[in-house]
């Protein structure tokens, strides 16, 4: 009898929590406008100005991300970020990275860095042991007209159409480099708050039919991906410069 009462009480508490969630869903999103950039954004003012790319090596510090072999996702993401940064710098891009070391950085801070940069492309770099090849993601937010002060958690909504176009260009470049790709959409904190064409790039192991599995921690695999991403961003830059 007592256990029935207790489970009833627990059920009621959970139902109350469920109603609370439903209520906060109504109230929460409108309250948080995306913070206005505290520094003047580096917006290109002329066609000759630099083309800015933000590289966001995901996780870091206390947040190790997924386990990759004996290491962590945060290390693979940083290694890819470092490789891609030098390739892009050599091609004349202005590159802004969210982290250069094993630092803890939350999703809000990452999006703030991206949004201050006035970037034409923002890449969130991840790695996983699940699935295979490269997983490309654009935000699953419904495309919306860009507004001057968008809601923080859904700021990417105004850029989704261009993010999908960027994902298409990156998809082509990876396929051209014979790297298997899947393209999807997801709700990822950080990317959903970015006011730039933004995609998440997740490196998964390669499972070739008659060969050994290639881990995302493999430096040669990372270099191959970095080359393909650099080629894609060059293509993206060319497309953006066309009238």
């Amino acid at each position: 009898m007592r256990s029935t009462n207790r489970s009833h009480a627990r059920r009621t508490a959970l139902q109350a929590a469920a109603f609370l969630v439903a209520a906060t869903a109504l109230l929460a999103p409108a309250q948080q406008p995306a913070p206005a950039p505290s520094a003047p954004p580096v917006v290109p003012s002329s066609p000759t100005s630099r083309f800015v790319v933000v590289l966001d090596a995901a996780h870091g510090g206390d947040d190790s991300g997924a386990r990759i072999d004996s290491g962590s996702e945060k290390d693979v993401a940083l290694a890819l970020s470092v490789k891609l940064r030098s390739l892009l710098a050599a091609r004349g891009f202005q590159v802004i990275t969210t982290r250069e070391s094993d630092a803890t950085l939350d999703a809000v801070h990452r999006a703030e860095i991206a949004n201050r940069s006035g970037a034409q492309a923002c890449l969130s770099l991840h790695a996983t042991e699940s699935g295979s090849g490269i997983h490309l993601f654009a935000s699953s937010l419904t495309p919306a007209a860009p507004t001057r002060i968008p809601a923080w958690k859904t700021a990417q909504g105004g850029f989704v159409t261009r993010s999908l176009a960027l994902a298409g260009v990156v998809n082509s470049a990876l396929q051209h480099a014979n790297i298997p790709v899947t393209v999807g959409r997801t709700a990822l904190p950080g990317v959903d708050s970015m006011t730039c064409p933004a995609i998440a790039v997740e490196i998964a192991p390669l499972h070739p039919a008659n060969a050994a599995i290639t881990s995302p921690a493999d430096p040669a695999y990372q270099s191959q991906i970095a080359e393909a991403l650099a080629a894609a961003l060059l293509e993206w830059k060319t497309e953006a410069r066309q009238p």
Partner: protein
Amino acid sequence: MIRRYQTVLFVILFAASVVMGVVLWQLRERAHQRLITGQNSTPTQAPEVAPAEKATFLVANDADSSLLGQEQILPLPQDPGARARLILGKLLDIYAASNALHPVPGGAASIEEVFLLPVPSSETSRPTSSRPASASRPPTEDSTGPQLAVVNLSSAFVAGHPAGIETESLTVLSLCGTLHANLPRVAQVRFLVDGQPRATLAGHADLTRTYLAAGAVSPEGAQQ
């Protein structure tokens, strides 16, 4: 000296008391049996009498990021919440199997509860202060409108979920899609972990969002 009629009366009374004893014993056994079967039927278990029905599962595959429809005939409870919980539990049992194409440990025990609530009216039409009626009307009265499903996951499931954008997104999408396939009124889905809101499933997929049952993030959430 005992008279003959006294002996006959004694035998009759004795026989009657024995018969009554046997009948009482049988009644007690029957009542006991009823009690035991009553205690066994937890709300999660489909009663034996529940008719077998077709359930549809949207099963994820990590290799190609796909969701494939699978059908199973199984006894389903009539209560929509219990039905939703049982079906999602079966889906997670598929993922907990050793040969799963989307391996996630935990199984059916990972779905602690599924609550079905009417979609707040302000999500379909903007909230206005001139509509106090919706507050006084019990929400369950609307038996045809779209529903919000709140899925309460166990913390053990979340702790054991593999980390990655693809794997986490597939889990969320297959849970949402499977709910919608079997309970078409479910239009939106939100997630709790041990009754509490949680930021992400395993570091990636956003669990603070309202998901459309078809998969994408709620457009209402996107516009506000």
